[in-house]
């Protein structure tokens, strides 16, 4: 009970820390932060339910006015753009990533965690973010794919691969810590 609450709160803080420590840009020259990788890690490490709860806590704190999103953005305003579907999709992304980790146990962790991160952080996330963008701007699929999906795609693929390696690193250092496989 205590452990669950504490670890959810700490992973929510970890998502924020990954977006705020400026040196955590993933590849030199490409200005992508590690924040959405934090969302993937919540799923692959904590599992579906705990992962989604950590992300929900993080979003709640963004909404009540803490500048926690990458680049120090926050408050209610960030939920007002046509791209807010990404934020609303984050908990589902973590849930889906966790679910894949929990169900697919037959292969090695880097592979499964990488696929889980991609399935949640790209598959589930874009399934929500792209239709949200189309609804918010009453645009067609072509526009949504160009303006809401394409700019983020290369970074997200890289992040999913890294999330796989990081999850495997954690499993190696603390075999019990992978609650998604507990």
């Amino acid at each position, binding site marked *: *009970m*205590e*452990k669950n*609450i*504490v*670890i*959810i*709160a*700490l992973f*929510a*803080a*970890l998502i*924020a*820390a*990954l977006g*705020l*420590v400026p*040196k*955590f*840009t*993933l*590849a*030199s020259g490409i200005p992508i932060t*590690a924040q959405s*990788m934090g969302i993937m*890690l919540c799923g692959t*490490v904590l599992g579906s339910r705990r992962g989604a709860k950590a992300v929900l*806590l*993080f979003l*709640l*704190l963004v909404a*009540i*006015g*803490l*500048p*926690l999103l990458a680049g120090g*953005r*926050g*408050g*209610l*305003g*960030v*939920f*007002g*753009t*046509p*791209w807010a579907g990404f934020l609303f999709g984050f908990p589902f992304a973590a849930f889906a990533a966790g679910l894949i980790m929990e169900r697919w146990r037959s292969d090695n962790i880097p592979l499964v965690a990488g696929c889980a991160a991609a399935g949640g952080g790209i598959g589930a996330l874009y399934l929500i973010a792209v239709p949200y963008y189309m609804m*918010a*701007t*009453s645009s067609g699929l072509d*526009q949504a794919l*160009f*303006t809401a999906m394409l700019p983020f795609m290369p970074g997200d693929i890289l992040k999913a691969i*890294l999330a796989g390696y*990081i999850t495997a*690193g*954690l499993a190696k*250092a*603390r075999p019990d*810590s992978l609650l998604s496989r507990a």
Partner: protein
Amino acid sequence: MFSLTSPVKSPYHNVPPGPKFFLLMIASITLFLIGNIYLQAAALAFVLGLYLLPGGTFFKEGLRMLWPLWPFVGIVFLWHAFTHDILPGLIIILRMISAVALANLVTMTSQLDEVIALVTRVVTPFRRFGLRPQILALSIAMFIRFLPVLIEKGGLLVQSWRSRSTRPAGWRVVVPLALLALDDADTVAEALRARGGIEPDKI
């Protein structure tokens, strides 16, 4: 603790957050339903007027908070310029700026403790679904306590990486940082239990 609440006092600071959030919700839905460009422009002018009311300093602060929106405005504008249908693009841009500006206004004029109190009050009816307000309050407190700790430890990890390598730290530092979070969680959970733990729900 850092927050986005404006230090410049405005009349809006005195309105309790509950009504402000409610009005924001209504205004956002209305903005979404308006399809006329003149009405949208008028709405944006009205919102900017709301920012001007408490004075120039407040207005500038508001503009600074709106600034991160420009890449989004740029993308929408470029797409619509490219497809030669500029009017719907302008409506989307105006609507987006008004909606974000209004939401920022609520954030800038609400004290963090008031908003946390509002959230705890709003979630109380969800008790029966397992969402206990006390646990939510504890989670928020722990988050706010541990975020600076994690940021500091992340900074230290980056520094120690730098002192040993000529290459930038990058993603490899995330593993030890997450490990620190996992270990801290163990210690803190144990400490909570040692002090009586979290009471099981009595309902």
